C-alpha cells in the first residue's frame, strides 16, 4: 500500500512535468538566428566562437526540452543561443565593414595614383604646348624680322631709285637748260643760231664747239634720247640751194656729234630750206634769225612728239 502511494504521488508529480514538450518560440528564433549566422561566408573566420557557443546553448536547450525541464529553463538556454548568434552576426558584419575599409583604402591609393599620373601627364602636355607656342612665337618673330628687313631694303631701294630718278631728271633738265632748250609742241628744241656758220657755208665755226660738246655729253648720258637736226635758211636764193644748204648744215652738226661719240642711229637730219621762217625775211635781223639749225629732242623713251606740220 505504501509503495502504491509512493509511486502514485511520484507519477502524478512527474506527469505535471512530463506533458508533451511545448513548442518554444524562443527555440525557433534561436535556430533561425543560428541558421542565418551559419550561412554567412565569414561566419567561421569572424564568429567561430560565437557560432560554437550558440550551437552549444541550442543543444542544451533542446536537451532540456527533451528532458521536460520547465519552459523557463528551455527558453533561457534558447535565449542565450540566440544572443550568441546575434553577437556572431554583428562580428560578421564588422568583418565585412573592415574588408570594405581595406578595399576602399586600395581604391583611394588607386584614385590618388591615377590623379597624380593624370596631373603629371597634363603638366607634360602643358609644357609641350607652351614649348610649341614659344617656338611658334619665335618663328613668327623671325618672320616679322625678315619681313621688316625686306621692307626696309625695298624702301631703301625705292628711295634710292627716287633719288636717282630725281637726280637724273634734275641733271637732264640742267643739261637742257644749259643748251638753252625751249619747250615747244614738238618737244624740247635747241636752236643753233646763224653765228655758228659763215654765210653760204656749212662748216661749223670754232665757236660752236661749246654747244656741240654739251649736246654730245647730254646724248651720251641719255642714250635713249634721239634728236632730229633740222637746217633752216632765209628766203634769199633758190629753194634747191637753200634746201641743200640747210641739209649740209644739219649734217655738219650730226658729223660733229658723231666725232664726239654720239651713236649715228640716235641722230636724224633734215634740210628744211626757207619753208619755216621764224622771223621776217625783209630785214637783216629777221633773216639772221631764220638762218638756223634746230635740234628737236625725243622723250627719254626715244619717241618724238607727234605734230602735224
Amino acid at each position, binding site marked *: 500500500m505504501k509503495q502504491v502511494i509512493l509511486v502514485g*504521488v511520484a507519477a502524478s508529480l512527474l506527469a505535471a512535468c512530463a506533458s508533451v514538450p511545448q513548442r518554444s518560440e524562443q527555440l525557433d528564433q534561436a535556430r533561425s538566428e543560428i541558421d542565418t549566422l551559419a550561412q554567412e561566408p565569414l561566419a567561421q573566420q569572424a564568429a567561430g566562437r560565437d557560432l560554437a557557443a550558440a550551437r552549444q546553448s541550442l543543444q542544451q536547450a533542446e536537451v532540456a526540452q527533451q528532458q521536460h525541464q520547465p519552459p523557463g529553463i528551455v527558453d533561457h538556454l534558447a535565449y542565450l543561443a540566440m544572443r*550568441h548568434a546575434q*553577437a556572431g552576426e*554583428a562580428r560578421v558584419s564588422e568583418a565585412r565593414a573592415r574588408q*570594405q*575599409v581595406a578595399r576602399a583604402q586600395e581604391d583611394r591609393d588607386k584614385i590618388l595614383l591615377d*590623379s597624380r599620373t593624370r596631373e603629371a601627364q597634363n603638366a607634360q602636355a602643358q609644357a609641350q604646348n607652351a614649348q610649341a607656342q614659344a617656338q611658334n612665337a619665335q618663328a613668327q618673330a623671325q618672320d616679322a624680322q625678315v619681313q621688316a628687313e625686306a621692307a626696309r631694303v625695298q624702301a631703301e631701294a625705292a628711295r634710292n631709285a627716287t633719288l636717282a630718278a630725281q637726280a637724273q631728271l634734275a641733271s637732264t633738265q640742267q643739261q637742257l637748260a644749259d643748251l638753252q632748250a625751249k619747250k615747244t609742241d614738238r618737244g624740247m628744241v635747241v636752236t643753233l643760231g646763224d653765228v655758228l656758220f659763215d654765210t653760204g657755208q656749212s662748216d661749223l665755226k670754232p665757236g660752236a664747239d661749246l654747244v656741240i660738246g654739251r649736246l654730245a655729253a647730254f646724248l651720251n648720258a641719255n642714250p635713249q634720247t634721239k634728236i632730229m637736226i633740222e637746217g633752216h635758211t632765209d628766203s634769199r636764193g633758190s629753194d634747191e640751194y637753200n634746201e641743200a644748204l640747210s641739209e649740209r648744215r644739219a649734217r655738219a652738226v650730226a658729223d660733229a656729234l658723231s666725232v664726239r661719240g654720239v651713236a649715228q642711229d640716235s641722230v636724224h637730219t633734215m634740210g628744211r630750206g626757207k619753208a619755216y621762217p621764224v622771223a621776217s625775211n625783209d630785214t637783216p635781223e629777221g633773216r639772221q634769225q631764220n638762218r638756223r639749225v634746230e635740234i628737236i629732242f625725243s622723250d627719254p623713251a626715244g619717241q618724238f612728239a607727234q605734230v602735224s606740220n
Partner: protein
Amino acid sequence: MSLRTEIISAAVIACGLAGGCATEGPPPSEEVTRARTVIEQADKAGAQRYAAADLQRAHDELSNAEKSNGEGKYDEARRYAESAEADADVATARASDGEAQRAAQEVAQGNETLRQESARGAAANANAQ
C-alpha cells in the same frame, strides 16, 4: 517512515528526475562577476551609442541577478547573470560593428570626394588646354 515523510521523499525524487525542480546550486558569484566585466567592455566599446537597448537590457539583467542573489534565488540569479553577459556581449559586438560601419562609410565618402576632386581637376586641366 510516516506517510508524510514518504510523500516528501517521493516529491524530492520526482523533482530530481525531472531536473526542473533541481536543488539550488551555490550563489553565482562567478557568473555575476563575468557579466559585470563584459558590461564594462560594452561601455568602453561605445555600446551606449550603437547598442543602447542591448546595454540597458544587460544592466537590467545584472540588477535582477543581484536582487535574486539577495533573495537566495541562486539559480534564477545565475540565469539572469548569464543573460546579462550574453546581452553585454551582443552590445559589445554591435558597438564594434557600428564603429566599423562608420569607418567604412567615412572612407567611402572620402573616396567619393577624392574622385570628384580628381574629375574636377581633370576637367579644369582639359579646359585650360
